[in-house]
C-alpha cells in the first residue's frame, strides 16, 4: 500500500475503501458485503448525477434559449432538484378511476429496476465493475429490452388515449432503433472478440505514441458510433426522437396519468437510461475508463469514465436545445431506410477491416466504402424528397 504511487491509490480509492469497510466483518460475509456496498454505490451515485443533470439541463437549455433557467433555490438555483424531490415526494399520488391499478403501480418499478440492472456490467473504472460477465453486452441489451414492456404497461394501464398513443409510439420507435443499436455494437464485438465490456475496454486501452487505440478513431468505429448515437437517442426517447412524450401533442405520452413520486420514477428511469446508454457508448467506442492521451494516464480511471458519460449527457442536452421533433413517418423511414442499411454495410466493412491485416490500405478501402455509401444513400434519399423552397399553406 505504502509503496504504491499516489496516482494508483487515487485510481483504486473506491476499491480500497470498499475493502477497508468490509474487513471489519467476518471473512465469510466479506464478498457479500462487498457486493452490497457496490450496489449501494451505484444506487446512490447515479440518482445523484440525475439530480445534478436536471438542473444543468434546465440551466443549459435556458442559456441556449436566451433565458436564465432556474435561479431561485440556493446559489444559482443549484438546490432546485432538492425542492423538486421534496415536491414529488409530498404530492398526491393520483391513480385514475378506470386505471388498471396493479399494472399502473408496477410499470414505474419495472422500468427503474430494469434500468438500474444495466449499470451492473458497465466498467466505471479500472477494476470497478459490479459483475464482470462473459456476456456483459448481451446482458445490457437484455435489460434495455425489458424497459419496453414497462413503457407499454404504463401506457396501457392508464386507460388514456394520450398514454396509449405515447406507448405505441415509444414501442414502435424502440423496436425500430434497437436493431441498429445492436448491429452497431456488434462491430465492436467483432474486432474486440469478446462480449465482456471489461475486455472491450482493455482492448482499447493501448497507445501508439501518446494516442489511444479507441474504436471511434477507425473508419468503421466512427460510422458505428454515429449510428449507435442516433439509435441511443431514439432508445432514450430524447429530442429529436421524443415523439412518445411530445408534450405539444400527447401531454406527456405514456406517463400522462402519473403524478407524484411515480412521475419522478419515470423521470429518473429516463435519465438513468441516458446515463447507462452513454456509459455503454463510451465503453464501446471511446475507450471506457482509459485516458485520452497516454501522458494523462495518471488521472484516475473513474474520472475519465464519468467525464465521458457527462460529455455525452451534454450532447443530449445540446441536441434537445437545437433540433426540432421528427414526424412519425420520418422517424420510421430514417430507421429502416438509412440507419439499418448503413449499419449492415458497416458490418461488412468491419469484417473487411478485421481480415485486411494492418497497413494503410485498409484505412483507405474502409473509409472509401463508408464515405461513398454515405454520400450515395444521402443523395438518393434527398433526391426522392424533392426538397425545394419552403411553402406555407396557412401562414402566408
Amino acid at each position, binding site marked *: 500500500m505504502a509503496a504504491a504511487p499516489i496516482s494508483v491509490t487515487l485510481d483504486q480509492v473506491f476499491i480500497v475503501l470498499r475493502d477497508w469497510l468490509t474487513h471489519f466483518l467476518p471473512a465469510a460475509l466479506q464478498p457479500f458485503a462487498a457486493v452490497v456496498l457496490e450496489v449501494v454505490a451505484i444506487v446512490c451515485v447515479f440518482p445523484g448525477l440525475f439530480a445534478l443533470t436536471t438542473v444543468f439541463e434546465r440551466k443549459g437549455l435556458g442559456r441556449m434559449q436566451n433565458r436564465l433557467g432556474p435561479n431561485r433555490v440556493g446559489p444559482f438555483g443549484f438546490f432546485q432538484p432538492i425542492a423538486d424531490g421534496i415536491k414529488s415526494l409530498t404530492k398526491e399520488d393520483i391513480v385514475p378511476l378506470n386505471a*388498471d391499478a396493479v*399494472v399502473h403501480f408496477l410499470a414505474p418499478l419495472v422500468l427503474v429496476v430494469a434500468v438500474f440492472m444495466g449499470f451492473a456490467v458497465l466498467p466505471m473504472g479500472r477494476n470497478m465493475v459490479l459483475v464482470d*460477465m*462473459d*456476456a456483459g453486452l*448481451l*446482458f445490457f*441489451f*437484455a*435489460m*434495455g*429490452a*425489458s424497459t*419496453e*414492456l414497462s413503457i*407499454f*404497461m404504463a401506457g*396501457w394501464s392508464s386507460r388514456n388515449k394520450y398514454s*396509449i398513443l405515447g406507448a*405505441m409510439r415509444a*414501442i414502435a420507435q424502440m*423496436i425500430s432503433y*434497437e436493431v441498429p443499436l445492436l448491429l452497431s455494437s456488434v462491430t465492436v464485438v467483432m474486432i474486440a*472478440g*469478446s*462480449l465482456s465490456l471489461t475486455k472491450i475496454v482493455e482492448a482499447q486501452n493501448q497507445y501508439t505514441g501518446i494516442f489511444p487505440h479507441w474504436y471511434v478513431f477507425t473508419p468503421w468505429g466512427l460510422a458505428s458510433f454515429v449510428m449507435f448515437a442516433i439509435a441511443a437517442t431514439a432508445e432514450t426517447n430524447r429530442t429529436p426522437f421524443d415523439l412518445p412524450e411530445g408534450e405539444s401533442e400527447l401531454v406527456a405520452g405514456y406517463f400522462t396519468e402519473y403524478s407524484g413520486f411515480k412521475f419522478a420514477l419515470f423521470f429518473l428511469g429516463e435519465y438513468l437510461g441516458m446515463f447507462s446508454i452513454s456509459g455503454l457508448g463510451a465503453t464501446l467506442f471511446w475507450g471506457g475508463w482509459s485516458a485520452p492521451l497516454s501522458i494523462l494516464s495518471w488521472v484516475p480511471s473513474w474520472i475519465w469514465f464519468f467525464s465521458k458519460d457527462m460529455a455525452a449527457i451534454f450532447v443530449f442536452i445540446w441536441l434537445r436545445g437545437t433540433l426540432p421533433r421528427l414526424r412519425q413517418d420520418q422517424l420510421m423511414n430514417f430507421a429502416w431506410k438509412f440507419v439499418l442499411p448503413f449499419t449492415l454495410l458497416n458490418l461488412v466493412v468491419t469484417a473487411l477491416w478485421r481480415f485486411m491485416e494492418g497497413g494503410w490500405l485498409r484505412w483507405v478501402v474502409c473509409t472509401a466504402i463508408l464515405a461513398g455509401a454515405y454520400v450515395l444513400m444521402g443523395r438518393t434519399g434527398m433526391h426522392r424528397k424533392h426538397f425545394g423552397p419552403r411553402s406555407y399553406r396557412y401562414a402566408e
Partner: protein
Amino acid sequence: MSVVFYGIAALTVAGGLAAVLLKNTVHCALAVAVAFAGLALLFLSLDAQFVGFAQILVYVGAVAILIVFAILLTRGAEPVTGGVFSKSWLVGLVIAAGVFAVLGWAVLQSAHALPLVTAAPAVTVQDIGVALVGRYVLPLEIVALLLTAATIGAVIVALHEKERTR
C-alpha cells in the same frame, strides 16, 4: 435443487398459470412475460448465461411486445365476459396430458441413455459462437433464409393490404 430453484420454478409456473387463467388478455400477455423471465432465471441458475440473456432479449423484449401489439391492434384488449375455459376443455386436457407424458417419458429415458455428467460443462459464449459458425453453420443459414423469407412475406402482405384500402 435448492431454494433458489424452487422459488424460480414457482414464479415460472405461476406466470404460466396466470397466462391461461386471467380474464384480461393484456394481463395474460404480461403474465407470459413473467413466465419468460422465470425461464431466463432458470437458465441463469444453470450457468447458461448466453441462453438466459437471449431468452430475455428475444422473448421478454420482442415476443412479449409482439403479443401485446397484436392484442391491441386486433381490439382483443377487452376482458372476456364468460369463463376462460373453452367448451372443449376436456379434449385439450387429454392432448396436453399426452404431450406432457411423451416429453416426460423422453426426458426420463434420456437419464439412462446418456452417461452421467458429474461436472457442469463450462460453455463460454465464445464456444457457442464458434459452434454456430462452425459445426452448425448450415442450420444457421437455413434459419436465416427462413427468417428472410418470412420478413419479405410480411412486407408483401402489408403492401397488399395498403393497395386494397386505397
